[in-house]
């Protein structure tokens, strides 16, 4: 693992040197494209062809859309892009899942069928770059952006290596304008990016990987553990997945900044959310905005119009439209994460929570208790409930199957007596708890005016100290087992 990391650092350094040595934009884009191909091909070179197929198909479709004015022809071109991109997802990621689920359904009806199983390795990052490319053709179809003439620029916008494997899902309409001009070297941006990447590595190697052992123990055989162990396992997983994924996003955003690009943010302290919908406005924001723009809104508006024909109140039609669109969107979100019923159920529950919130809770304008201390008490209660519900959903997300999730939840709510001595890996639990508290304190502190002002200056001593401390912490507490990023599997 050490030799891979060391080699990775050397290659990254080479990319930066070559990138900034070139003067012209096209030269820099060539360096980026080459680096992205090497990066992606490192894992499995055959999947490079898949990536290039997606890029080429949507590039050509978008160019054709620009030449077509007829509604039907443009629609057919969009359909071609959708079919090409989604087919790749379905074949490589979902084929076995749909086949086995269909066979199970037939068996349930008494029709004996053996499921077809194909040994396919899902290309890493497929969900991310397919969504990126899809959003481009959809935006060109709706004339939100003009099609990109340069294949090089378009290819880099999709294959940009910091974001290729696990996002953020930066849409071409946000990224292409930045690729059109050569970005002058910005020393402040370089330093900000470097410190951001170091922070991301700290979150992943120190926090996420330190929480992993107890999570693995709890989820491996939940039936044999006490309720306290399972509760700790669930909370640890909530923070593990947050630190892991936001850590990767920080690394990706930091590397992008070092190359002179502004990348979209992916997280905004999701666990301070006071409602399920607020959680999704703070968690994996690049995915949730993609789902909002390309699934939720196209489903919501027609449904709202349809419902308004059957109900007298516009507000009721709105609520029902919102609820249905939320369910559809979150089911897609669940499926996007993986080809398993646990993800589908996880998405469905989030959809129900968001629908329930809209249907049952009063709108913000009509809410009572607008003044402290009642407002504070209500906010605290809402925060606790949201965190609890989200963590319970993570149990289903993390479990290997629905039956394991059911056992986990059943054992968790059995409230078995706690034997503190029997909690596995006590040292790891103490370390994990301290790290979670440290993460919460750091994220809270980062919102204070003092730190915001200090960190606004790129060359501040505080930034220097914080980055150094992160590296010391990685050396002293970081996991050296080479655990992969959780979101690489999606």
């Amino acid at each position, binding site marked *: *693992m*050490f*030799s891979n990391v060391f080699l990775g650092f050397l290659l990254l350094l080479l990319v930066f040197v070559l990138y*900034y*040595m*070139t*003067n*012209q934009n*096209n*030269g820099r884009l*060539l360096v980026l494209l080459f680096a992205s191909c090497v990066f992606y091909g490192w894992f499995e070179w055959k999947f490079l062809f898949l990536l290039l197929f997606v890029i080429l198909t949507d590039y050509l479709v978008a160019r054709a859309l620009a030449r077509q004015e007829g509604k039907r022809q443009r629609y057919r071109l969009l359909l071609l892009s959708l079919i090409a991109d989604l087919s790749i997802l379905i074949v490589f990621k979902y084929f076995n899942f749909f086949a086995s689920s269909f066979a199970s359904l037939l068996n349930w009806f008494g029709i004996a069928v053996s499921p077809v199983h194909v040994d396919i390795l899902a290309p890493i990052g497929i969900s991310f770059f397919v969504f990126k490319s899809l959003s481009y053709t959809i935006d060109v179809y709706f004339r939100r952006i003009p099609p990109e003439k340069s294949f090089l620029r378009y290819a880099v916008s999709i294959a940009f290596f910091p974001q290729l494997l696990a996002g953020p899902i930066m849409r071409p309409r946000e990224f292409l304008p930045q690729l059109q001009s050569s970005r*002058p*070297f910005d*020393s*402040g941006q*370089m*330093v900000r990016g*470097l410190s951001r990447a170091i922070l991301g590595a700290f979150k992943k190697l120190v926090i996420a990987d330190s929480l992993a052992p107890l999570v693995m123990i709890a989820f491996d055989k939940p039936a044999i553990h006490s309720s306290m162990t399972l509760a700790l396992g669930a909370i640890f997983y909530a923070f593990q997945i947050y630190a892991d994924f936001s850590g990767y996003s920080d690394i990706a955003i930091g590397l992008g900044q070092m190359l002179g690009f502004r990348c979209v943010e992916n997280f905004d302290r999701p666990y301070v959310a006071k409602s399920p919908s607020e959680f999704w406005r703070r968690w994996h924001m690049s995915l949730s905005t993609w789902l909002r723009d390309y699934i939720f809104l196209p489903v919501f508006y027609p449904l709202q119009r349809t419902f308004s024909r059957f109900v007298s109140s516009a507000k009721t039609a709105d609520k029902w439209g919102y609820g249905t669109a939320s369910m559809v969107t979150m089911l897609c979100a669940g499926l996007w994460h993986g080809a398993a019923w646990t993800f589908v159920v996880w998405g469905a529950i989030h959809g129900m929570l968001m629908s329930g919130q809209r249907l049952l809770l009063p709108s913000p304008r009509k809410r009572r208790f607008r003044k402290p201390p009642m407002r504070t008490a209500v906010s605290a209660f809402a925060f606790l409930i949201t965190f609890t519900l989200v963590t319970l959903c993570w149990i289903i997300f993390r479990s290997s199957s629905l039956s394991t999730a059911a056992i986990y939840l059943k054992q968790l709510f059995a409230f078995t007596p706690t034997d503190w001595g029997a909690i596995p890996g006590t*040292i790891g639990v103490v*370390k994990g708890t301290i790290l979670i508290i440290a993460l919460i304190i750091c994220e809270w502190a980062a919102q204070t005016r003092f730190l915001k002002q200090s960190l606004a200056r*790129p*060359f501040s001593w505080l930034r*220097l*100290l914080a*980055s*150094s401390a992160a*590296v*010391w912490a990685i*050396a*002293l*507490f*970081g996991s*050296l087992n080479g655990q992969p990023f959780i979101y690489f599997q999606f």
Partner: protein
Amino acid sequence: MASLLSTFSFKSSGRRPRICSASLWVALLIGLIFTGDRLFSVGLKQLLLASEFRYSNLYAGRSRADVLIIGNSRALNCCYAPAIQQKYGISAINLAYNGLPMEMAAALIEDYYDLNVPPKILIIEATSLTHGNYSRDIYLYAAVSRRLRKLFEADLPNRYLTEKLFHLQTYNRETFLRVLYYLRRSDQNWINRYRISPEIVRESHDMSTTTWENRKENINALMDVMSIANRFGTRVVIIVSPYLPGYIDKVLNFDAWLTELRTLVGGQATVWDYSRALTDLDYFADRVHLNEDGSRRLLDIMRNDGIFVIKGPRETDPPGASGNH
């Protein structure tokens, strides 16, 4: 083609890139990282040697005992050092560790002889001769032991290199947490105290058979240890501590292995077979480890066999004492 080539031109066109501020910051960052790494690791090394953990005492030169016990987890649990002191008035130190092979034990023993007063009796649990894997937690002490550093470099060359670069990584081990835990308390009371469960007893009947083989490196290490021990007048005792009744019958070549061991050590050490010495299940924590009660019972047996007889003054004797015990 010309325009493509010109994109890689080394000539700057227009403003020179302002890399000085960023370079300076990065240089400061690297400097601060390495300075902090070295400073903090010096502090942690002091903590390491100040601890009462068994190996910290060893490398700080604070270990003094008549009886030294070493081996793997079986040695950790079969010879309870505080019991030897309480029952027989003989000072004892247990230097065993989970999974410790003889090759690593030899490095620890040789360091012990370099830095501390040699013991009168050295008890080695024989099954450490069969181990192939190193107890990598012990590499924490590679910072203070040339012998352990050599083993570390051969075993994990990449990690060895990163620890040379980042000294703080040396302390990124669970052992260091134990060091901190035992900062102000002795770790000699570290022993199993639970009883074997009926399920494990039942499962042991269905265990598959196995054969034991001594690792050549471990045998060579044992020879070195016996040679040093004899040079300093230490009596070497090799024991096979008790197994759950019926377990040792699963080792098909046990008798041949024991005979070979006795032949190898010759007159340099005595080999005692206690593998079947205890039959009461209450003395066992699991199939291969005793608990505290089992250890106390075994020590009585060893005492009756004369293993704890010490000729000459003991560490626990007042100054001027002479005789045999």
